[in-house]
């Protein structure tokens, strides 16, 4: 227990340090703006969004249902597993394991599990499940951390872990656990859609095609369908429907074509992920390989990643502060919050790849569209979560008649209340941003994720493995720093 003279001062110090680091990063990050001529293409995109069209309705419906099926099954397994891991999250190896599974993008998990299970539903499920378990473990552990220690003090100190947790921390945090799982289900829908890129029959399968081919009406139809799916979650995801849904989801899963079992797991673990020089016992060669990797990929990638994420995180934070009040009942009013909520919905449902592409057309290739795409997407997400938390509290809170109103209320009451949670989300998004930068190769910005993607494209798993380890360690470090910062809040 440390005594804190002023929570606000600590918090301000943390925020100022983050902003100072971001300002410093601005000096190094490449924000060149190129003259562009995007209006023809943007007009086509805009027109496509306004005139969504899809010739083959059953296939669209099927893709939507598959997207839901994968997400639902993955969460059904990942959430309880994450809960179990959260109970022992203080144990360092567990934290390390979770950090490493989180640092790999779902798409790469998909490619890794393809070694084992081919292009099959199991591959898709595992590709979502594994990283999500890591995320659940971390966030659940954090939720436990925020709970009062008092209930645990009032029961016998000899009571075992399972009994203790099932009577204190789990029921204490149950509403938070449920609401996070619900939110995570939405994330799983996004991941499930994205996994279409490696061949699962989900929305992403068609979206990527339509978008790549410039068929913007079809892309528009898919985006709108996805938007509706997400916006209507609370109407169709009912507690009593979950079990029937799971059964239906299992039945929905597509057949596996052609895979006879006997994937190349052993080959993958024993040979593919190790550089050949190491397998030959050539230590000199291995050293050279490491030096080469460090000089040409790890160091530049690390540097770019740190610069961009720092700027993106701070920009995300600013965006949240501006955007969240427009979606809250208490600040925008029960009717006027809907346009705000809609904008946030659009921001968080649009895949980063699409945002990045539009921004690339507008700004030319540089760090700028990367930072904006990440800030818009993540800002939309966090602002939505913050606004939701505010609305939940609005319903339960006893208001004081002498509460200020308007801007004063925003500045003195609502924002201070929301701020710690918002910072927690931001710190978590740091690692999400790290992961997402993998798909920003179209912008010509060589982050760590860019090199991981290249390694997978070039079927150089040994490089991917090394880069993933580096990313995982970076993840752990950032995680450690943000834990420390938050413990000061």
């Amino acid at each position, binding site marked *: 227990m*440390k005594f804190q003279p002023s929570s606000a001062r600590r918090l301000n110090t943390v925020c100022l340090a983050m902003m100072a680091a971001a300002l410093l990063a601005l000096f190094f990050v490449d924000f060149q703006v190129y003259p562009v001529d995007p209006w023809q293409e943007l007009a086509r995109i805009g027109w496509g969004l306004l005139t969504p069209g899809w010739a083959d309705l059953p296939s669209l419906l099927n893709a939507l249902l598959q997207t839901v099926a994968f997400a639902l099954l993955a969460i059904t397994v990942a959430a309880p597993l994450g809960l179990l891991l959260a109970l022992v999250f203080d144990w360092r190896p567990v934290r390390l394991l979770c950090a490493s599974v989180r640092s790999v993008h779902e798409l790469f998990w998909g490619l890794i599990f393809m070694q084992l299970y081919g292009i099959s539903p199991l591959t898709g499920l595992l590709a979502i499940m594994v990283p999500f378990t890591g995320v659940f473990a971390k966030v659940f552990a954090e939720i436990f951390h925020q709970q009062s220690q008092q209930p645990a003090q009032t029961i016998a100190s000899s009571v075992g872990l399972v009994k203790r947790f*099932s009577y204190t921390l789990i029921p204490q945090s149950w509403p938070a656990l449920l609401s996070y799982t619900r939110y995570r289900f939405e994330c799983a829908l996004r991941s499930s859609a994205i996994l279409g890129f490696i061949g699962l029959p989900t929305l992403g399968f068609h979206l990527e095609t339509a978008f790549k081919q410039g068929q913007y009406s079809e892309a528009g139809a898919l985006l709108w369908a996805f938007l509706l799916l997400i916006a209507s979650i609370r109407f169709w995801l009912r507690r009593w429907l979950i079990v029937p849904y799971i059964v239906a989801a299992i039945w929905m899963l597509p057949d596996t074509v052609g895979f006879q079992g006997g994937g190349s797991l052993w080959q993958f673990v024993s040979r593919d992920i190790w550089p050949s020089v190491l397998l030959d016992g050539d230590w000199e060669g291995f050293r050279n390989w490491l030096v080469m990797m460090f000089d040409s990929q790890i160091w530049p990638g690390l540097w770019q990643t740190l610069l961009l994420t720092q700027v993106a995180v701070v920009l995300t934070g600013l965006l949240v502060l501006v955007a969240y009040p427009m979606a809250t009942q208490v600040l925008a009013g029960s009717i006027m919050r809907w346009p705000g909520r809609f904008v946030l919905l659009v921001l968080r449902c649009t895949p980063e790849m699409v945002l990045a592409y539009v921004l690339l057309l507008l700004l030319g290739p540089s760090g700028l569209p990367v930072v904006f795409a990440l800030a818009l997407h993540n800002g939309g997400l966090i602002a939505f979560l913050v606004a939701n938390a505010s609305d939940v509290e609005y319903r339960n809170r006893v208001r004081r008649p002498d509460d200020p109103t308007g801007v004063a209320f925003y500045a003195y009451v609502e924002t201070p209340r929301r701020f710690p949670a918002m910072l927690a989300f931001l710190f978590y998004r740091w690692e999400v941003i790290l992961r997402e930068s993998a798909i920003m190769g179209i912008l010509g910005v060589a982050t760590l994720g860019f090199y991981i993607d290249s390694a997978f494209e070039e079927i150089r798993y040994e490089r991917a493995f090394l880069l993933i380890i580096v990313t995982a360690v970076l993840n752990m470090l950032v995680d450690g720093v943000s834990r420390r910062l938050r413990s000061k809040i």
Partner: protein
Amino acid sequence: MNESLFELNGFTFRYGSTPVLDDITLTISRGEKVALLGPSGAGKSTLLTVLYEQQSALSALQPQGGGLVDLLSVYHNIFMGGLDRVSTIAALWNLVRPLRTGVAEISQIVQTLGLDDKLWHSVDRLSGGQRQRVALGRALYRHQPVFLGDEPVSSIDPVQAQSLLAYVLQQHETAVISLHNRQLALEHFDRVLVLRDGRLCCDSPVKALSCDQLDELYTQTESPLDHNAPVTKNDGWVIRTS
């Protein structure tokens, strides 16, 4: 009978540079009923926590706020006190379907507490006084020889407070209880400690004290020094879900 349970010798406890407990020397023996008085922020809660850590295997602690789990019913909140007496499986099953023995025992406790009609209410639906009685129920169900209570009856109406306090003291061999009500302290305890700014400024048998003397100790302390009292953790910056 005079075996000592708690011992502090020049004990100091700091949050950062501010001492919360300053040079406390104290011995509490088995069988003593000790009232702990002093203004808010004097260090009473910290002292109780320190004492609890010395004898956690023998003590039932009732912290300020009670440590209730909102989502669970009155029954489950009290049952938690006896978790060490049931197996893990039974404890888990009890969450799904309450154990018959547990229900029988706890029904009696809630009767004493005057909560018999609330057994299956979740505690977030209860008033402050009712919640405090549930917390008291859990401490009673711990079946421990020592009771450490941090203002355990402060929100309960005076008449009931008095009888419950008497009941708790009768159920426990030893008790250290912080209070604001000086009258209760003089009537039910045999020793009084007064804390002021983290220092023990009075440690005396009740017989040697009068209500006026206690008042004096209070008025002295409530004056200007109060501004320096450490801020409690209950400000809006901390994410709390209790």
